[in-house]
């Protein structure tokens, strides 16, 4: 059966989705490049501000605050969307409906309600916990996730800080989160939490290595660590129809992509690599003893990292914002959320790996293959003189 018979409500849903897509696409095209528009707004405001009796220092700080608020706003909204989306995706994979009532249309306001509930909850610090370590841990987990967004290119000209060492910066800063997880595990004064923290430390340290090594071939080709350079390098087409994205580089691109994706899933502590949380073994691992807002910071950080990994994958392998018709930031978001969907798909399909097998997998499988990939890429670069 090539054309499945659709019910009336399915036809209606498809119609609504198509209409939403058209309206959304039209709006996006009308807005155009977001980076360009923001620059225009800035250029419009700057002369007005200069006439006002404000010291230049203050206006610069105000500019930074606005930039940060935009990023925080984006992270919060995208996390809220992702949580709702994950619930819907998992529900449909498990022949359920998921949230349906809160907010009316398919429970869209469920995450807002959850957020309010988490804020209003009592904040408990267990008696056996080390109070300061316990309090500091969620902050230390979330802050690096937020900092990393500063160098993520959301589209052409849409980047908060265009660092020359953008890729390295993201790996270095996101690695700091492990510290927070270990602190949470140790500081909770709970045996299960401690085991979770130790597992998380071992896992993150191990998977960092193949993750960095897997993108060395890209750096060999591009010759720069700047994320915008890497994204620009991938624009254009081969033979007029294959995009010059890194994932389409024969053999090298695919190996690198798979290793990077697997290590990214492991870095974000999600199934099948969620051994640090391991609900059925460690009862939630490092965040067993957290409640209320502190728990929601862990939650926020997890989803922030999921989107960060997806955005990084998009920038490194899927050509960043390159694509026809629509503006670059729309393409970037579309591709990133496509990768986010992969993350969700993995989570609701696979069982959890065991901690020692996980280590074997990274050291005995991912590492050698990433080295092989670097060798091949190096040979190609030498031979072709790219």
């Amino acid at each position: 059966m090539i054309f499945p018979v659709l019910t009336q409500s399915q036809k209606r849903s498809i119609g609504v989705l198509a209409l939403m897509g058209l309206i959304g696409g039209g709006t996006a095209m009308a807005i155009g490049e977001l980076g360009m528009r923001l620059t225009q707004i800035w250029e419009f405001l700057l002369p007005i501000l200069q006439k006002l009796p404000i010291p230049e220092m203050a206006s610069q700080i105000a500019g930074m605050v606005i930039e940060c608020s935009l990023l925080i706003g984006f992270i919060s909204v995208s996390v809220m969307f992702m949580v709702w989306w994950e619930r819907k995706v998992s529900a449909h994979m498990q022949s359920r409906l998921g949230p349906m009532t809160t907010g009316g249309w398919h429970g869209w306001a469920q995450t807002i309600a959850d957020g309010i509930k988490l804020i209003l909850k009592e904040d408990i610090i267990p008696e056996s916990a080390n109070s300061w370590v316990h309090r500091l841990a969620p902050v230390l987990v979330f802050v690096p996730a937020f900092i990393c967004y500063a160098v993520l290119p959301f589209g052409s000209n849409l980047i908060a800080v265009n660092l020359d060492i953008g890729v390295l910066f993201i790996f270095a800063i996101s690695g700091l989160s492990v510290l927070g997880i270990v602190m949470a595990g140790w500081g909770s004064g709970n045996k299960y939490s401690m085991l979770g923290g130790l597992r998380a430390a071992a896992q993150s340290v191990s998977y960092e290595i193949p993750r960095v090594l897997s993108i060395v071939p890209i750096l060999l080709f591009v010759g720069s660590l700047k994320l915008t350079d890497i994204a620009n390098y991938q624009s254009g087409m081969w033979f007029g129809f294959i995009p010059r994205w890194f994932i389409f580089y024969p053999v090298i691109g695919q190996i690198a992509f798979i290793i990077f994706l697997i290590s990214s899933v492991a870095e974000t502590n999600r199934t099948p690599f969620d051994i640090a949380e391991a609900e059925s073994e460690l009862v939630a691992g490092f965040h067993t003893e957290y409640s209320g807002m502190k728990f929601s910071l862990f939650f926020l950080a997890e989803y922030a990292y999921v989107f960060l990994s997806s955005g990084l994958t998009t920038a490194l392998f899927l050509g960043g914002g390159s694509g026809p018709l629509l503006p670059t930031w729309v393409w970037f978001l579309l591709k990133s959320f496509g990768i986010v969907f992969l993350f969700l798909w993995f989570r609701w399909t696979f069982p959890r790996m065991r901690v020692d097998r996980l280590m074997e997998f990274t050291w005995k499988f991912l590492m050698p293959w990433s080295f092989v990939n670097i060798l091949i890429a190096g040979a190609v670069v030498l031979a072709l003189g790219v």
Partner: protein
Amino acid sequence: MATELIRIPGSDFQTEEMILNLGPQHPSTHGVLRVVLKIDGEVITAAQPDVGYLHRGTEKLAENRTYPQMLVISDRWDYLSAMSNNLIWCLAVEKLLQIEVPLRGDYLRVIMVELNRIASHLVFFGTYGIDIGAYTPFLHAFREREKILDLFEEVSGARMTYNYIRIGGVMADLPEDWIGKCRSFLEWIKPRFVEYDILLTENPIFKDRTQNIGIISKEDAISYAITGPNLRGCGISFDLRKDEPYCHYQDFKFDVPTGKQGDCWDRYWVRIQEMKESVKIVEQALDHLPTGVPNAKVPRIIRPPVGESYAQLEAPRGVLGIYCLSAGEDKPYRVHVRAPSFINLTILQKILVGMKLADVVAILGSIDIVLGEVDR
């Protein structure tokens, strides 16, 4: 259980063993089981299961209840397969009374018990997925189980504690069109087993977590009196339905699946195959369902003669037996339940040693205990 200091040879460095209380409040102990684990890092050096948190004293209660009243309590032992519990109590009492159940009654019992076996193994399949870390199989299994419970609800009025199989037969004959509904359910569930294989059975991560984990040798299985799928997973073909048929099981054609080496995956695989065999049995029973009344004539007040009886059957979790002693009154003098979950659980402290912490839930899940039956 005391911890020991572990000295690392050639250095001043030393570590300490840790005692970890797995349960009674833990998501993966399938109820209120407590396992005291002594762990060295992630490796288990000793394990001590602690049962009794759900003890309700049903064996003692039986001494103060009439024979039909005890049937209600029997539902509460293994609450995932209450039909088997009903049946074993009835078989034991019928032995005392020397009653022959009509053929239709026996066939109805077989249908119900086998459907219940499918439902029980579906719960195992789902919860085992959760133990290993996969959530989706659980909800898929419960979707199927829901349909079986709907069938039971139509027959008995209850969804969990059926009280359907009665002394001398069954509570009531089948409702109208129940056979058709049952047949359409059987047709519907067959392709689901293929889905399960794709989703979990053949999943490389799942195989990695379960193969060569928690191996029970044939000798151990026999000396610990392991029964049911756990025994058949070791490669021993022992099934009371074949070896000591009751309720006319000899009329049905079915295979007894056996595993190869007795690891977690074999035990899991045996249960999946058993569901397929149960579907076959129910189909045959529906095809050849005899006509007539399902119930035998039973005296109004059941007062068996002085004597004793032991009946056993193949429950989803192993050999479920009842020893019933009658002093000639309307209440039993003494009742003993041979609960398969309880006896299967005894091997836990032997096979856990040397395993990783993550394997505890995998092994415990593969033994498939129901705490209501362990503690009774």
